[in-house]
């Protein structure tokens, strides 16, 4: 039994037997990747099951919890709500990427210093979302940061330390930028 060869799904028996694999080419964490995927495969499952990029986590698979957030063409996106085939010719960046990214580096430091993670399940997506807030200059106040985190559930920390860590990283980066000028 295989995805391409048809299976025993009831309503889907005929449909799935007819399903073709779709060829995709993605720029993934800076490298070109090509694959043939069943169209139903989500970007999240593509990353986790086919590329072994397991830092992208699934918490609900309907777009609410935010744990699967990655960058698609530089913008945060729910990898559970994107089909891998729809990412053809797009750029995808996951927590395993970001080599040398100063914002992620600063966030990693402040998350550690301020105990902004416990079980770690929400953390990769939280970092990616926080990075976006900082880059869009939406991390100027605790209120702004909290609003910006509305789509990322953390069940462990109570958020206080996450907000502190993001605010501090944003401050650090602003200081760094000011000094550079």
């Amino acid at each position, binding site marked *: 039994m295989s995805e391409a060869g048809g299976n025993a799904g009831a309503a*889907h028996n005929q449909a799935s037997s007819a*399903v073709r694999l779709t060829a995709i080419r993605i720029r993934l964490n800076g490298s070109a990747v090509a694959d043939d995927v069943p169209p*139903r495969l989500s970007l999240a499952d593509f990353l986790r099951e086919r590329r072994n990029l397991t830092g992208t986590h699934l918490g609900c698979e309907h777009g609410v919890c935010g744990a699967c957030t990655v960058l698609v063409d530089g*913008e945060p996106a*729910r990898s559970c709500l994107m*089909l891998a085939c*729809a990412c*053809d010719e797009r750029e995808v960046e996951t927590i395993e990427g970001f080599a040398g990214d100063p914002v992620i580096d600063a966030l990693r430091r402040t998350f550690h210093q301020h105990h902004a993670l416990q079980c770690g399940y929400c953390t990769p997506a939280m970092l990616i979302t926080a990075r976006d807030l900082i880059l869009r200059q939406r991390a100027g106040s605790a209120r702004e940061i909290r*609003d910006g985190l509305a*789509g990322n559930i953390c069940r462990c920390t109570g958020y206080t330390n996450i907000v502190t860590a993001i605010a501090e990283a944003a401050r650090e980066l602003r200081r760094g930028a000011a000094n550079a000028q």
Partner: protein
Amino acid sequence: MKAPAVDYVRPGSLAEAIDLLAKSQDEARVIAGGQSLVAMMNLRVAVPRLLIDIARLPELTAVADDTEAVTLGACVTHAAIEDARIADPSRGLMPKVASGLAYRAIRNRGTIGGSLALSDPAAEWPGVLTALDAEAMLCGPTGRRSLKCAEFTTGIFETRLGPDEIVESIRIRKLSPEARWGYVKLCRKSGEFASALAVVVCDRALGYWRVVLGAANGAPLVLESASRVVSEGAMGQLQEAVRDDLDRAADRHFDEFQLNLHTVVAMRAAQQALS
């Protein structure tokens, strides 16, 4: 919670997309941002045989800005509206609405046309576009037709979009510089669908006043009496007018809690618009 097996095609033009849709005999779904559709597929509430991906069609991502109106391609994202990366005909109303719609990661992919085409009763755009008196341009195998957004949505996930039609664009008349609006969305948690939602648009220069409720157990509800009272500036009569409008909407089966909530948001949005 995985999507059912499905075929996928990404046509190169709108015409090709419509052709594919017409041939699919109701078994295809058009996918743009997919932010609702993929969730529904993951839950196996939606079980299409074929997905026709229109997200990147240039015809559908274009924005046209003429003297009277702004026409947004159906695949313009909520985030593009939020950031005012495109012309805003609404004097700030649409960016405000977009900024509170779901979450940023969703807004980066979800589209205004997709939201209208789905017409989730609790979604923001059907009500807001109704309040702005926007028109949807629908494209099908026999050509184009335009339809007021107020008439587009007919019920809960029900619209006048034909099975072989695609929402191509949305034309929104520009509000005049004196125009005022009010927008109140009540939800228990930031980014959630609304418990109650009211939009009020007043544009004296255009002679246009409209009070609309979203999250209204069906299509957006235009409050006719309330709109008239707002046009007359007779705020003292507003509450009664809203109640009259809601009484006439008995088919919505609002309970006492909802009636009160709708009344409150309508009043508050009107106050915002007139203050």
